[in-house]
C-alpha cells in the first residue's frame, strides 16, 4: 500500500449549521457550505476542476445535485456512497485524484437532508432484504452494549453510567459550538433517566437525525501556498469494509460485537502511512463516530487509544474530555453536533481543520498535534470504517 502523506492540502472548508433545517433545501445546504469554503480558500466556482459528492439518500443520485446547485458547468462530478463513511469517502477519492496529478483544485462535498421525511431512529426497514430482521440502528448497537457488559462483567447500572458520561461529555463540547444541532449541556441524571429507545440505550445514548452539509477544497500540497497561508495536510487515509450482512440474519459465529474490527483495520492503514506507533500519544484530538455512546466506548479501544476492555476506566478518568490527554469529539460529535449521514465525515474534518488553524474558539486545544477523524457506517457485524488523519503543514 502507498501513502497519501503530505501530498494533498485542505485549503478551505465550509459547514452549514446542523439541525432541523426546515427552511433549507438540499441546494441551500450545498451553496451555504461551498461558499464558506470558497471564501476560506480564496477561490471561486470557476476554479473548481472536479467535484466529489457524498450523499446517502437525499439526492438525485449522481454528482449533478452539486453541479446544479453550484452551477458548475461541464466539469467531472462523481457521487460516492459508503453509508456513514460517505463524506470521508468523498474526501478520500478526491484526494487520490489530486495526488494522481489529475486536478489541481477539487471540491469534496457531503450532505444529507433527512428531516423532510420524518426519519426517527435511523430505522432500516426492509430496504436491504424482503425480511430485514435487524430493526433500527439503536437496536443493532444496543446488542453490542449488552454483550460488552456481559463480557467485561460490568453491572447494568454501572454500564449505563459509563455510557451516560460519554453523552454528557459530548453535549458539553457541542454546547460550545455555534453550528451544533444541540447546544445544551446535560447532566448525568438527565442521561440516566431518559426514556428507553433500545434496551439498554436511552434517548441520550443515541445521536439525532439531522440536516446538514460540509465540504472541503483540496489541492496539491506544493500548490497550497499559492492559495492561502492557512492550510492543513492530509497525513493518512484508511478504509475498511466488512463482509457480513446482518440484514439477512447473517452473523458469523467468529464475529466479536464488542470490538470494531473494521475500525481497527482502517486505523492501522492510516497509522502506517503516517508512521504512528502510539496513537494515544501522537494523536492530539479525535473526531469519532459516536452514533451511540456504546459505539464511542468501543471506538476508544478499536482505534488503539486504550486496551480492549479499558474504555470504561478511561471514561472514569475523563481522559477524552476537552481537558483530558486525548480530547474526543471536541465539537460535540454526532451526539450533539448531529448526524446528517452523508455530511458527518467532512464535519469531523472541519473541526480538526479549525483546531489545526487555531480557529476553534472556546474549544481550542493548546497543542492539537495530529487530528484523527473516524467514520463508521453499517451495524455491528459489518461496517464501512474510515480513518482520516490530518496535520500541520510544517
Amino acid at each position: 500500500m502507498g501513502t497519501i502523506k503530505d501530498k494533498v492540502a485542505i485549503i478551505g472548508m465550509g459547514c452549514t449549521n446542523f439541525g432541523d433545517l426546515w427552511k433549507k433545501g438540499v441546494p441551500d445546504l450545498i451553496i451555504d457550505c461551498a461558499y464558506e469554503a470558497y471564501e476560506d480558500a480564496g477561490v471561486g466556482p470557476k476554479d473548481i476542476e472536479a467535484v466529489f459528492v457524498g450523499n446517502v439518500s437525499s439526492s438525485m443520485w449522481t454528482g449533478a445535485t452539486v453541479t446544479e446547485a453550484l452551477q458548475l458547468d461541464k466539469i467531472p462530478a462523481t457521487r460516492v456512497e459508503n453509508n456513514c463513511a460517505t463524506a470521508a469517502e468523498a474526501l478520500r477519492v478526491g484526494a487520490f485524484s489530486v495526488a494522481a496529478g489529475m486536478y489541481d483544485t477539487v471540491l469534496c462535498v457531503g450532505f444529507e437532508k433527512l428531516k423532510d421525511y420524518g426519519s426517527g431512529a435511523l430505522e432500516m426497514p426492509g430496504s436491504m432484504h424482503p425480511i430485514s430482521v435487524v430493526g433500527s440502528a439503536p437496536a443493532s448497537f444496543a446488542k453490542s452494549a449488552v454483550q460488552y457488559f456481559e463480557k467485561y462483567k460490568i453491572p447494568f447500572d454501572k454500564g449505563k453510567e459509563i455510557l451516560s458520561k460519554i453523552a454528557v461529555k459530548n453535549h458539553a463540547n457541542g454546547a460550545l459550538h455555534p453550528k451544533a444541532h444541540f447546544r445544551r449541556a446535560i447532566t448525568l441524571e438527565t442521561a440516566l433517566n431518559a426514556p428507553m429507545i433500545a434496551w439498554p440505550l436511552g434517548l441520550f445514548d443515541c445521536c439525532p437525525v439531522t440536516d446538514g452539509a460540509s465540504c472541503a477544497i483540496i489541492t496539491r500540497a506544493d500548490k497550497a501556498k499559492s492559495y492561502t497561508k492557512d492550510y492543513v495536510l492530509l497525513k493518512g487515509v484508511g478504509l475498511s469494509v466488512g463482509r457480513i450482512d446482518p440484514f439477512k440474519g447473517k452473523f458469523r459465529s467468529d464475529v466479536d460485537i464488542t470490538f470494531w474490527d473494521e475500525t481497527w483495520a482502517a486505523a492501522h492503514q492510516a497509522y502506517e502511512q503516517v508512521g504512528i506507533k502510539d496513537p494515544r500519544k501522537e494523536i492530539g484530538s479525535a473526531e469519532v463516530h459516536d452514533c451511540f455512546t456504546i459505539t464511542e466506548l468501543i471506538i476508544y479501544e478499536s482505534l488503539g487509544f486504550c486496551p480492549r476492555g479499558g474504555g470504561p476506566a478511561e471514561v472514569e478518568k475523563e481522559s477524552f474530555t476537552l481537558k483530558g490527554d486525548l480530547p474526543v469529539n471536541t465539537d460535540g460529535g454526532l451526539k450533539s453536533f448531529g448526524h446528517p449521514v452523508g455530511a458527518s465525515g467532512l464535519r469531523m474534518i472541519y473541526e480538526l481543520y479549525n483546531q489545526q488553524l487555531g480557529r476553534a474558539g472556546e474549544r481550542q486545544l493548546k497543542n492539537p498535534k495530529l487530528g484523527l477523524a473516524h467514520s463508521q457506517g453499517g451495524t455491528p457485524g459489518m461496517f464501512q470504517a474510515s480513518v482520516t488523519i490530518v496535520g500541520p503543514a510544517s
Partner: protein
Amino acid sequence: MIGICSYGAYVPLYRLAREIMVLEGKGGAGERSVAGADEDALTMAIDAILDCTKGMDRGSIEGLLNATTSSPFAEKQIAAAAAAALDFKDNIIAADIGHSLRAGLTAVRLAADTVKAGSAKKVMVTAADRRLGTPLSAMESNGGDGAAALLLGDKDVIASIEGFYSFSSDFTDTWRPATDQFVHVWSDRFAVAEGYQPMMQQALAAAMKKFGIEPKDVTKLVYNGPDARTHGAVATALKFDPKTQVQDPLFSVLGNTGAAFPLMLLVAALEKAKAGDSILVAAYGDGVDVMLLKVTDDIEKARDRHGVLGYLKSKKMLPSYVKYLRLRHLFFVESSRMTPITPGLAQLWRERDSMYKLHASKCKQCGWVEFPIRRICPKCYSKDDYQQVKLLDQKVKLYSFSTDTIPTIPEVTDPPQGRAIIDFEGSTRMELEMTDFGNIQDLKVGQPMEMTFRRLERQGDVAAYAWKCKPVR
C-alpha cells in the same frame, strides 16, 4: 391399524382475565388465551406441529391438512407455507380445510381415509384458530386462541380410530362474512335450542348406536361447545357422568378456540389417557363429526409433549384491555413517518431454503457453517462447494439482545419489538427478531431459546413470515 401416531398442541403465551373485559363493572370469570401480535392460524399450526413432531423425522410425513376458520389469507394455502417452513418433502398432499368450527375433526376423517386408501402413510392434521369477536362482546370474552396437531398413520398408533360418524346441516348460528374480521353470533337462545343442543345430542346418540357402544363404555367424552353451561347440558342429557366421563372444556383457562377447540380438547384428553381408554370425540359446526378412539400401550411414548395442559401452565397475564387490543392490531400506535417498503416476493422465494427452511451452508472443504447459505466460504474461499444443513432442531442460546421501543413501521401495534443474536449449538450465529420475551431486564446472555415461525409486521399486504426466537417455554 389406522389411528393417531402422535399429538401436539400450542397455546400462545398471553392470557386475558375476563374480569377486565368490560367498560364498567365486572366482567366474566376465568381467562382466555390470546395470540401475540405476530401470531395467526398459520404460525400457531406450525408451533403445534413442532410439539407433535418432537424428536421425529418430519421428512417422512406425506400429507398435511390445516384446518382453520381464521386463515390469514382468503387465497393462499397455509398448509404449503407450513410444509415449507417445517422442511417437509415436496411431494406431499397439502390442503387447507376451512370455514367450519368442526373442520378439524373433518380433516382427521379425511386424513384417516387417505391413509386407509394407501395414498399416504403418514398425514399431519392441524387445527388452529385466532378467535376474534367484536370488542367487549361475549364472543370475544368466551373465545380463545390456539392450535392442535395430530399425526395420523397406520403404524405405531397411540390411539386407534374405531369409527367415524358425520352429518351435515345448514344451520347458521355463528358466521363471519368474507369481508369482516369479526365472528358474529345470532341470538343464543335460538342457536342453542334449535342448533347446538339437539344436533350434538342426536349425533352422539346416533354415533354410539353405529359404533355399538353405550355411555358406560366411554372413558372420556370430548366435545366443543359455545360456553360452559351449554356444553355441560349435552353430557347430562346423554347420561354421561360430568365429573368423571367428560373432558374439562377448559373455558376458564383457555376459552373456545374455534376450529381448534375439539382437537385441543382431544389432545388434553390424550395427555391424561391410559392404554385401553375409549375416547369419544365430537365436533359441532354446520353439522357434527364424531370419532371413536381406543388408546393403545404406545400412548406412554408420547408423554414428552407440551400439549395443551403443558402450554396452559406457561403464561403471561395481559396487564390491561388496551394491551389486548394492541396484540389484536385494534389499537394503533403512532409510528415514525417512513417510506413504505414492500417485501420482494421473488427474492423471498429465491432464498426460501435459508429463510423458510432455515438451512445453512456447510463448507465441504473446511466444514465452516454459515447462515444464510453463502456461495463463497469466508474461511477457505471454496466456491459453490457446500452442503445444506438444517438448523431448526439445533439447540439455541441467546448471544445478545435488545428492543426497539419506537415502532419502526406502522403495522407494529405492540412495541417494543425484540431483537436478538442467537448461537445455534456448535454451528452458526444468526441475527433475528425476538418475540414473547416478557421483561427485557429478565433476559440473560447465554440462556436457552427456541425457534418459532411468526408473521413479520410489514408495510403492505405481502405475505411475509420468518423464524424468530423466544425464550424456552
